[in-house]
């Protein structure tokens, strides 16, 4: 049975590989561990889909020892310290254990010339890494995220660190109240994230570009973004908004404090899709959470909210009018295309909210309103044409009926004669 599995494992090895770093004779590690079964066989079974095995690496590439010996059951010969045999590392040793290869540029480039080799360095800057270095074996090490035997490439959809699984992987610890309590950390991040617009995009639409934990917190260098860097983190994707935000800071010569960082309006893990009613002074407005009635900012928010709402309502109205004209048979596709420009202005105005510059915002709204007005004009023209068509049809039918009546009378006259 074990021998059969060994043959299968060898047969399943990729046919096109980079040069194997070790000699190719059958490994005695596989043979013995399979024969032992149970816990001893688990690493071997996991290796079947392991990215390392796929690259031609085997047990002794990590654990050392003599894989060519031990076929006769001589464990000591296989686990020969003189041949570099290493026991499984402790949790505190794991980062360094993996880094023996992963931080070795010369070695790693044999497999992929573009691969990164800074993971250990980054890890040491992370909260996980710092605590690990300080002797805390409970914090995450490589194997907690990537697995031990059976590690898959990040791009493999079955990998625990693939974007679609990463949040679950982080949540294994960060949603564990027992563990997080020891560090005084909250555990709601995962549940919050799952309700966010980011999670909807990632899981609902399958958009792998949508952010998950590591896109904001980093992977190996995982740290919570500091207050001052939140806008930079969000701005790595929402560049225009971040740039407007920073412009405001520079123009006004002030260091915007906590009050107006992204998360104040948009939340952090539970980021919701921004809606127009977040602007203004309505019940769902985020402006009024900081600005009270009587403040000039409150009045500005009110004007901006009303301006955006007018533009959106006008656009919907113009669209509806053109759609009705289209359904009535008037060709308005060019006008509908032109009206799409107004939607661009709506988007632009919503982005300009992040400049906190009412003048700029209202200019975008005014430009959009001009386009909307063109759409209304086209809609009115279409309906005028529709009326003219029906009047023309009425007149034509009157003429046709008159001609038919004349012809009937003529036929009767002829046939009476």
């Amino acid at each position: 049975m074990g021998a059969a599995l060994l043959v299968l494992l060898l047969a399943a090895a990729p046919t096109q590989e980079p040069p194997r770093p070790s000699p190719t004779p059958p490994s005695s590690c596989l043979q013995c561990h399979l024969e032992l079964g149970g816990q001893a066989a688990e690493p071997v079974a996991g290796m079947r889909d392991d990215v390392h095995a796929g690259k031609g690496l085997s047990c002794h590439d990590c654990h050392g020892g003599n894989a060519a010996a031990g076929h006769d059951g001589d464990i000591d010969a296989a686990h020969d310290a003189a041949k570099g045999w290493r026991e499984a590392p402790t949790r505190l040793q794991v980062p360094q254990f993996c880094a023996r290869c992963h931080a070795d540029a010369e070695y790693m480039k044999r497999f992929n010339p573009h691969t990164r080799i800074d993971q250990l360095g980054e890890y040491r800057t992370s909260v996980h890494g710092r605590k690990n270095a300080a002797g805390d074996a409970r914090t995450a090490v490589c194997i907690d995220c990537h697995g031990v035997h059976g590690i898959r490439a990040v791009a493999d959809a079955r990998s625990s660190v693939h974007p679609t699984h990463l949040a679950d992987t982080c949540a294994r610890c960060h949603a564990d109240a027992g563990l997080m309590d020891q560090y005084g950390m909250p555990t709601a991040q995962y549940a919050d994230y799952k309700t966010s617009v980011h999670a909807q995009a990632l899981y609902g639409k399958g958009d792998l570009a949508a952010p998950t934990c590591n896109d904001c917190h980093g992977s190996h260098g995982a740290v919570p973004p500091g207050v001052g860097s939140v806008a930079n983190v969000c701005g790595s994707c929402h560049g225009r908004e971040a740039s407007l935000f920073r412009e405001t800071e520079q123009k006004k010569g002030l260091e915007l404090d906590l009050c107006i960082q992204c998360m104040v309006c948009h939340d952090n893990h539970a980021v919701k899709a921004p809606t127009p009613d977040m602007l203004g002074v309505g019940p769902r407005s985020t402006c009024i959470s900081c600005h009270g009635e009587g403040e000039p900012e409150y009045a500005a928010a009110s004007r901006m909210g009303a301006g955006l709402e007018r533009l959106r309502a006008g656009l919907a109205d113009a669209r509806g009018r053109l759609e009705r004209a289209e359904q009535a048979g008037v060709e308005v596709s060019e006008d509908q295309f032109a009206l799409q420009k107004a939607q661009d202005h709506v988007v632009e105005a919503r982005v300009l909210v992040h400049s906190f510059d009412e003048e700029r915002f209202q200019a975008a709204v005014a430009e959009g309103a001009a386009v909307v007005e063109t759409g209304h004009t086209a809609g009115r023209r279409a309906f005028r044409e529709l009326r003219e068509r029906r009047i023309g049809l009425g007149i034509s039918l009157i003429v046709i009926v008159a001609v038919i009546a004349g012809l009937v009378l003529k036929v009767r006259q002829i046939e009476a004669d």
Partner: protein
Amino acid sequence: MSTAPDAPLRRLWGWLDERAGLSALVEMARHKRVPLHRHTLWYYLGGMALFLFSIQVGTGILLLLYYRGSAGEAFESVQFIMAKAPFGWLVRSLHSWSANVLVFVVFAHMFSTFFLKAYRRPRELTWFTGMALLGLMLAFGFSGYLLPWNTLAFFATQVGTEVAGSVPVVGRFALRLLRGGDQVTGGTLTRFYGIHVAVLPALTTVVLGVHLVLVQRHGMSVPPGVEDEGRRTGRAPRTLPFLPNFLLRDAIGWCAALGVLAALAALFPWELGTKADPFAPAPAGIRPEWYFGFMFQTLKMLPGHVLGIEGELLGIVAFTLGALVWLVAPLVDRRPGHRASRAFTVLGWAVLAYIAAFTALMYVKS
């Protein structure tokens, strides 16, 4: 020298008559008479088809002033016709509605001819040319459907040409001939455009000319039942002068048809849809024009294989054989009132019921 106001016209008539022999044609028209009986109404369908065809020619020429027959410009040119060209929407809508009404009238004309046994000797050639004209009208419809280069037309043409490609022996050749390659492309559009505005009009002119000459040569057929009644009662069938009585009655029908077409065009302008994208997946509910519906639905419902023969192939062979039987009806059905002739009448009703049912089914299923 005459001083009457119509003197110049008389001189013009005299000049033309001397050279073209117009008096003889007028004399023939004056003497032409149309049988008057309970089935006379069906005689108007031929004239109606001719009237609708003339609308097709007129509106088609007007559309040619703006239409551009290439994949890059076809859709936009039709869009321009519908939105910008003066009365372009009216001309295109009339062209499209009239085309559909024309096909319906031609079918009705064919079935009335069939049921009234008007194809019997000596009118076999009139029947053959009539059938050829029906085929030409369907070809006009098929080729014209693609010209706006919209999504529905694109995929319907893909399906339609695939069916042509399934014909045994010549299928592959027919498919490549129609498409101008293996796929429906801009080359297919250009090809269909040429067929629609040059090849088919030329063929139709010839076949229609022969058909009309044969109709004049043999006059209107009197149904066997009416002839029998005449023989039994000993009374000669009543007739109606073609000029002006029948022509004026024809004109009443034409005016009514024009009114219906104007109303359809004004109230339900022909849709343009979205521009064809050869790389987009076929939208759901693709179906051909209604007059190909019964064939489309039949092929769709046939199982993959019947007795080891590919279902679609079997369907196409059956349609081809059915059309051949229909075509040669005048050669087989030679004795009106005879048992074989009654069998043809039953066959006609069965075919009519089948076409109506499967056309309706196509709309229900999609």
